[in-house]
């Protein structure tokens, strides 16, 4: 009994009953999970964009047919002399066999084309004139400019990042609305208690603070549950996305741990601030 008295003495508005510890945390948990997915999507898209853009400058390859293999040095000299070409290097046969091994296996007898890698000075340079000049000097030479595709993929990644951030903003907006509705429900169910405390000399800050602490705690708890749910979800998604990042990233190390850790305090702060605003606004109707 003494314990019950202490508990209620700390909660004279009866907010532990008025503000359920299931509905609001459940909703916030779902939104925290969505926020974690959106944040991870944004971070992943940003990482892919950076990775693709870093590789884009070197993503031009030149292939010489086997009968022109002897003219490799001529082709290199010509390319290095061209404006816009930062570097041109031959890909040696050992590296070629290494690159082809996953698809063709050991191919010692197969004639392989001679391949050169070009690094352009920047992505805005059109590689088509370079390819034409090379083909005139070395018939059969072909140039493939992957940079264009990489640039387009990077633009796609930027779009994905933008959409993820928009989803995150939407989730935050919905969270604020949910907290505001929960606060209004709490105000409605504790209207008489609020008026009694007000008449006994409670300040607006006292009443609003009690609501804000309770709702902030519920929101933080819900976000903690949502973040915990997000860990295995994001781990599975990271495993699925591993090939896009070279297949060498461990799922657990790819998770946005800092974002996940920040979710509960941020959700708590959003709940606290929204409740403070809602309650103080409601209290203006009292003298």
């Amino acid at each position: 009994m003494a314990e019950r008295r202490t508990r209620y003495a700390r909660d004279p508005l009866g907010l532990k009953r008025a503000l359920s510890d299931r509905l609001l945390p459940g909703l916030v948990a779902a939104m925290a999970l969505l926020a974690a997915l959106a944040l991870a999507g944004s971070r992943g898209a940003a990482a892919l964009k950076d990775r693709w853009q870093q590789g884009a400058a070197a993503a031009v390859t030149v292939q010489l047919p086997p009968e022109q293999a002897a003219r490799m040095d001529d082709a290199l000299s010509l390319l290095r002399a061209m404006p816009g070409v930062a570097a041109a290097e031959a890909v040696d046969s050992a590296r070629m066999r290494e690159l082809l091994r996953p698809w063709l296996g050991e191919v010692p007898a197969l004639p392989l084309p001679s391949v050169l890698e070009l690094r352009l000075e920047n992505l805005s340079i059109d590689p088509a004139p370079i390819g034409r000049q090379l083909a005139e000097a070395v018939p059969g030479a072909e140039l493939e400019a992957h940079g264009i595709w990489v640039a387009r993929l990077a633009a796609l990644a930027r779009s994905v990042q933008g959409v993820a951030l928009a989803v995150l903003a939407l989730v935050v907006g919905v969270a604020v609305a949910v907290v505001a509705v929960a606060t209004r429900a709490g105000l409605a169910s504790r209207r008489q208690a609020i008026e009694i405390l007000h008449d006994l000399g409670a300040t607006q800050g006292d009443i609003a603070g009690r609501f804000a602490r309770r709702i902030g705690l519920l929101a933080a708890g819900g976000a903690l549950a949502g973040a915990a749910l997000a860990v295995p979800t994001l781990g599975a998604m990271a495993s699925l996305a591993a090939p896009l990042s070279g297949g060498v990233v461990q799922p657990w190390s790819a998770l946005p741990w800092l974002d996940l850790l920040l979710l509960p305090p941020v959700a708590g702060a959003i709940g606290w601030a929204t409740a403070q605003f809602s309650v103080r606004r409601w209290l203006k109707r009292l003298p």
Partner: protein
Amino acid sequence: MVRFTAVGLRYPSPDGQEGPEALADLTFTLPEGSFTWLLGASGAGKSSLLRLMHLALLPTRGELEVLGVRVNAARRGALPALRRRIGVVFQDFRLLPYLSAFDNVALPLRLAGRSEASLRPDVTEMLRWVGLQGKELSLPQQLSGGEQQRIAIARAVVTRPALLVADEPTGNLDSHQARRLLALLAQMNRLGTTVVVATHSEDLVEQFPAQALLLEDGRVVHHG
């Protein structure tokens, strides 16, 4: 001291417009340390007048001064501190149903920031005085109407307020408890508390002759 100067009060009508004046042209002064009976028929405006005195309502016109503070001119943020100097016995008790008798009585002290250790003797003493020792942990719904009223009285006086307003405080009390309450009010008044009691009980008024404010249709028709 409580001073009303040409005070009027209107409640909003259901359509949001201002309704007719529930109180009109109230001008009177209750000196510090006075005891005043507030009399009048049902609907005369006694409860509205008491609500103005304990700042649950603000006048729509005129000037109101309570305990030296001009309420009309006071900052909104200054009113809670003023309310904590006023004890109120509500006609409908207004106890918090999920708080024990002890916690209901302790509520004003906790709102004032008193420590748990220091408030316990005061609350226990007050509950003993109103005859509710042993019922500290009872919830209001476990108590009779008279016992609930005594909790409301204990809550109003536990802070030793400078102004005590009571709306029909003996409505649910038997004659013995009513006499005890009157003795408590008189004792507080002797200690300097300004006391205003709204009542229909002529017996109560006869037991403790004091100045009276007679209200009729929202106006003071007799003061003295």
